[in-house]
């Protein structure tokens, strides 16, 4: 049995997530095997790439229901970048494809006047909502690595754990909803501070 099943839908750098898990002593595997996924203590939805391709690959591998059931089982579900976005209902990136709809809301373009092609690449500070009193508090004002064109806009703003800022536009950087935690940035690419997020996952699983 694994602590973490990193869901393999062939999008993004799965190996880095595996290395980050291993660095904090989590037993992790990259898998698309429903049996292994079901037995795991937590799952990570990774991803870099297009919204519709991710959902397409998940459905092709017959993992849509498996992931949804895992969420219903109340065990931790972690979404990273595109893996965060697909938890929402839909994305402006591909309006014909529906996401998991676990989190109510949509994924939108950065949307600047007179600016196409806005892509947020680089290290940005996150502003943690103080009153939430979560493990993220110690990461307030720390920099994390972002690389994305789209941003998540949850209907319920209360689920937002942290914001970040790019070209003076505030956007949602992390959410927590029931047993789901999701990050627009890449904790596994954010150096020591990113690794703290994996340490927190470990704490949660070990209880």
């Amino acid at each position, binding site marked *: 049995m694994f602590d973490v099943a990193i869901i393999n839908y062939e999008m993004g750098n799965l*190996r880095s997530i595996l290395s980050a898990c291993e660095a904090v002593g989590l037993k992790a595997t990259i898998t698309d095997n429903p049996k292994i996924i079901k037995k795991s203590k937590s799952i990570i939805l990774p991803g870099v790439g297009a919204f519709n391709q991710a959902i397409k690959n998940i459905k092709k591998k017959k993992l849509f229901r498996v992931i949804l059931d895992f969420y219903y089982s109340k065990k931790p579900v972690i979404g990273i970048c595109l893996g965060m976005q697909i938890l929402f209902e839909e994305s402006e990136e591909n309006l014909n494809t529906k996401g998991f709809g676990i989190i109510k809301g949509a994924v939108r373009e950065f949307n600047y006047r007179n600016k196409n*092609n806005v892509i947020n690449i680089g290290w940005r500070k996150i502003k943690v909502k103080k009153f939430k009193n979560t493990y993220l508090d110690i990461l307030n004002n720390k920099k994390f690595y972002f*690389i994305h064109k789209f941003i998540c806009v949850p209907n319920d703003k209360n689920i937002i754990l942290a914001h970040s800022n790019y070209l003076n536009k505030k956007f949602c950087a992390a959410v927590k909803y029931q047993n789901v935690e999701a990050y627009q940035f890449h904790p596994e690419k954010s150096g020591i501070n990113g690794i703290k997020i994996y340490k927190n996952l470990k704490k949660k699983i070990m209880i």
Partner: protein
Amino acid sequence: MTNKNLRIIPRLDIKGQNLVKGIHLEGFRALGNVNDYIEKYYLEEADEILLNDVVASLYNRNTLFNLIKKITKKIFIPLIAGGGIKSLKDIEFLLSSGADRVFLNSSIIQNPRLLSDAVKYFGSSTIIVSIEAIKSKRKYFCLTNSGREETNLEVNSWIKQVEDMGASEIFLTSVDMDGTGRGFDIKLISQINNLISIPIIISGGYGKTTDIKKILKYKKISAISIGSALHYSSIKNFKYNFNKFDEGNYEFLKSQKKNKFNFTNIKKLRKILDNV
């Protein structure tokens, strides 16, 4: 507004297991084991690491894959890799070895379709276009194969074309300035700054702190990629076992000669950016 958010990206030209450095992308000197340097730059909080396999076509590719697999167990920052990528399969191997983004040059000049395919399969943010620019008769032209071959493709037109095809960023090397420490190629930068809307990583020429101040007004520059100045400042941090190396030009390392670069490191560079 100046561009204070510039990323600092050490550029590591590699040949097998060795970090190498040339001048104008030629005459590569071996500077030691690339892993040592990568770890040092990670601990100094580089924003990303860039690996450029300068002899990809001549050597066994597996060396690079294994190197990436090994190093990404220890470093948790983004890794950009490239050099000699010829196919979607090559990209897939690099990504599955642990690279986060890749850059393409020679193969997409021959076959631009590969660029649009790569963007489609791997997502725009994963795909960077590398341009090796050289000046000739007041114009800048693209070189291929790590600066070894000339083309009659002008940088000005190519850069617009690759933007349209979906590249997320440009990795622009001034071959004229590479390894010289004489400053970034301001003429080249000012020419292309207004041509495209995607960000540019500039490489080639960094020598002293004022070089950074000179490029801050160019808004399209998202990152500075630095090789020689960082590497030559790091050499003394490592012990070398020359018996272990089987090939390469080690004369410089063995001679322990001084180099012309002022001592620097990533933290120092960051301070310059924070204080402008």
